[in-house]
């Protein structure tokens, strides 16, 4: 038995060598730092380090659930993540299908570039642009004022915050997310379309009968991943866009953790507890989504 594994490994030694850096990367940067979650059960003493800090059992979790701000952040995270799955997730598929329908190659590439480009702008810059656009002296309010309408404090209005989050993230990321679908579409055998055309299928029927089934598997996998990522509400975006005025609708767990860990000087233990809490939830969601996709006849991730 051992002999054959060794033999197999030796035979494919160069492949294993190729694999090695990736394995090392995950071991060193993803698994080794995991011991940090011990902090959730400890009272962190900075000089003692994580391992030598005293244990406190579930105290940090008890502190956490007693904080009303945490539950507000929890609710916001769930709502914003749901919104991302319901609104932002299908948008990329829709965009890929639409771009695919553009027949002229040059135009198709042009659209693809235009939609992909914002992905490379950082949120810090986008938040600046948005303030210039939506702020009190911004373009939008200038137009409203010129039209004799009342100015809107969009950036500080809790009611506006979530729509802004969804729209701005869609603007930034939809083109980037569509790439993978476009790649899947590109892999479809053109003969299928030709056959459908000969059979008299119009473009919509072709989309329904050929394109969609061909990318459905990809969509299912990405959906599972998106659900597994659901409790990460997009820290960078929210952090750059929010302000105290919109905490009630915009403060997600990650931003809450950041604020209480560093700005307010709260205990690192409590904030690690939040992180762990979130990770466990993510893990559960990932499995549920995977299970559902499999039950619905799709191919799961695990």
């Amino acid at each position, binding site marked *: 038995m051992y002999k054959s594994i*060794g033999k197999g490994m*030796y035979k494919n*030694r160069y492949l*294993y*060598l190729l694999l*090695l*850096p990736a394995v*090392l*990367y995950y071991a*060193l*940067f993803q698994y080794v730092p995991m011991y940090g979650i011990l902090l959730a059960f400890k009272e*962190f*003493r*900075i*000089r*003692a380090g994580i391992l030598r800090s005293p244990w406190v059992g579930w105290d940090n979790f008890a502190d956490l659930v*007693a*904080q*009303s701000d945490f539950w507000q952040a929890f609710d916001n995270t769930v709502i914003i993540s749901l919104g991302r799955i319901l609104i932002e997730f299908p948008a990329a598929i829709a965009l890929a299908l639409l771009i695919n329908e553009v027949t002229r190659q040059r135009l198709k590439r042009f659209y693809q570039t235009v939609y992909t480009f914002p992905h490379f702008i950082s949120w810090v810059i986008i938040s600046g642009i948005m*303030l210039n656009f939506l*702020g*009190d*002296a911004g373009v939008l309010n*200038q137009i409203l*004022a010129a039209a004799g309408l009342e*100015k809107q*404090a969009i*950036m*500080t*209005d809790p009611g506006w915050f979530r729509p802004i989050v969804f729209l701005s993230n869609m603007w930034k990321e939809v083109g980037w997310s569509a790439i993978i679908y476009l790649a899947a579409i590109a892999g479809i055998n053109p003969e299928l379309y030709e056959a459908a055309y000969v059979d008299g299928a119009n473009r919509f029927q072709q989309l329904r009968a050929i394109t969609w089934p061909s990318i459905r598997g990809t969509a299912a996998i990405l959906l599972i991943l998106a659900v597994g990522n659901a409790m990460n509400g997009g820290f960078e975006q929210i952090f750059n866009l929010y*302000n*105290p*005025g919109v*905490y*009630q609708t915009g403060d997600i767990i990650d931003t809450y953790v950041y*604020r*209480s*860990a*560093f*700005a*307010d*000087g*709260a205990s*690192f233990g409590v904030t690690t507890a939040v992180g762990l809490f979130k990770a466990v939830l993510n893990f559960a969601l990932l499995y549920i989504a995977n299970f559902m996709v499999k039950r619905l006849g799709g191919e799961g991730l695990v």
Partner: protein
Amino acid sequence: MKKIKPLATLCMLTVLTAAALSGCSGGDKAAPSDSAGSSGSAAEPAAPDAGSTAADDPFKDHLDISVSWWGIGVAFQKHDEVLQKLEKDFNVTLKPMDIGWDNYKEKSQVWAAAGQLPDIITSSITNDNPATYNQWVSQGLIHALPDDLSKYPNVEKVAKAPDVQGIYRDGKLYAIPRMTYPNTDMWAVDRAIFVRKDWMDKLGIKDPQSFDEFEAMLKAFADKDPDGNGKKDTTGIVMNTLGYFKSVFVPTFPQFGNQSWLKEDGKWIPFYASKQMDNVVVQARKMYTDGALDPDFAVEKAGEANQKFYQNKAGAFAFSVDSVKGATGVKAEWEKNNPGQNFFDHVKLLHLWPAADGTIYRHTTTSWWSESMINADVDDAKLDRILRIYDWLLSPQGQELFNYGIEGKDYTKSGDTVTVTRPKDASGHYVDLKQEYPSMDVISQLAMWRNAASLEDTPANRAAFGDKEVQFVQDELNWQMKNAKPIPTAFDIFTMSTPAKDKLSAINFDDDFTRMILSKEDPVQMWHQIVKGYDGKGLQQAISEVTAEEAKNNK
């Protein structure tokens, strides 16, 4: 044998790659302890004969000292002569570690957690956040200063100042407070409201004598097109940071202005729990809904809104009086945006109106803001060097450098007479030393803010900043001394530490106050709700603890 060889190669490769990668990841953490170890071992052999060699030349060994400061990266970039002089005189190399005004507290927390604190730590925890200070002391992150400071008389003077006694822990001092002024009176000009007097004249507005008049003026700035461009593109008041803005509520509720505790119904309470907050929140909300307060105040980062005042988009600006001077002062920035116009023809300072008891109150607070702390990993030799540097920074010789520049180059001295020899700029003033030597800004303030020095009416200041600029500050200081009284303040509570009071640092007042201003709910009800939420963070317990503590001193 043949089989083993490739396997061994593979194993070795694995080990090597792992070593290389872990070297990358763990390197940062390992570095400080390594260097501490090596410097420690280098210092140790020297220690036994320190009596003979170190006493001869305390600066014999070259030392690297890392130091954090706001914007130090930029200031030290040029590595100018002032910095070179300091490094040469003390035989050190200063390693700058930059912090920003927006997140310096977070940054030092992150550094602390990662074990990467600089040797000289700049923060403001002794009176802004005593809980963190206590935590750092109890966790051994920062070095206690030696009990006997007689070798460093200027540092000793700071350590012995009466209000510094509040931050001794178990008889030891763990920070060198950065003294702002020699007395608490001079804080009077730390808060100011600049206002466009040309706009006031144009709209026929007189100096406001009450909050309502003040608010009406700001509203007029926003609504009545004071710049006459036909567009509704101006606003009332903008602020450098929220802290400066708070001063407009001093007549309504004096202690709100310096965020201190006060005695109400027989108990000592923090300002935010006071009944007087009701009036403040109503007024603040009104300013926002009327457009008297810059509608974007909550989304702008520190210092961002200043531009609105410089670019004629705001009629009032909450900042500090001494900020009018210097190369990047309010005057310079305003004139840069309005070429050919004289700042003093367009802008004046607005004085606060009397409070309900008829008194005009002026700003005051503890005599220092922020402090230098020394990393606990620093060895004795380095601690001695740092304290020697600080002693010099606080000495008259240090002061002379910051006033006049480098002797022989910027000035000459015979006896007590100083002759300034540095060049003059286009406006006939001597070139600003801080422009000539960017590091001067940091070095001159590292041990002490020296605001007093720049506020004083001295020939050096008149030469450096101009007569009008110095007069502007002097007039304001004199007015405040003559007409206003300091905010009644329980100074001892700022640095007091009790278990529950320490926990109050989890309260982020500024965030909640901003949230209240922006909300559409009833401000008073909302504020009461917020303060009730503070009970969950230990407010009531803190109140009883502090009240008991104050009772011991018959207060």
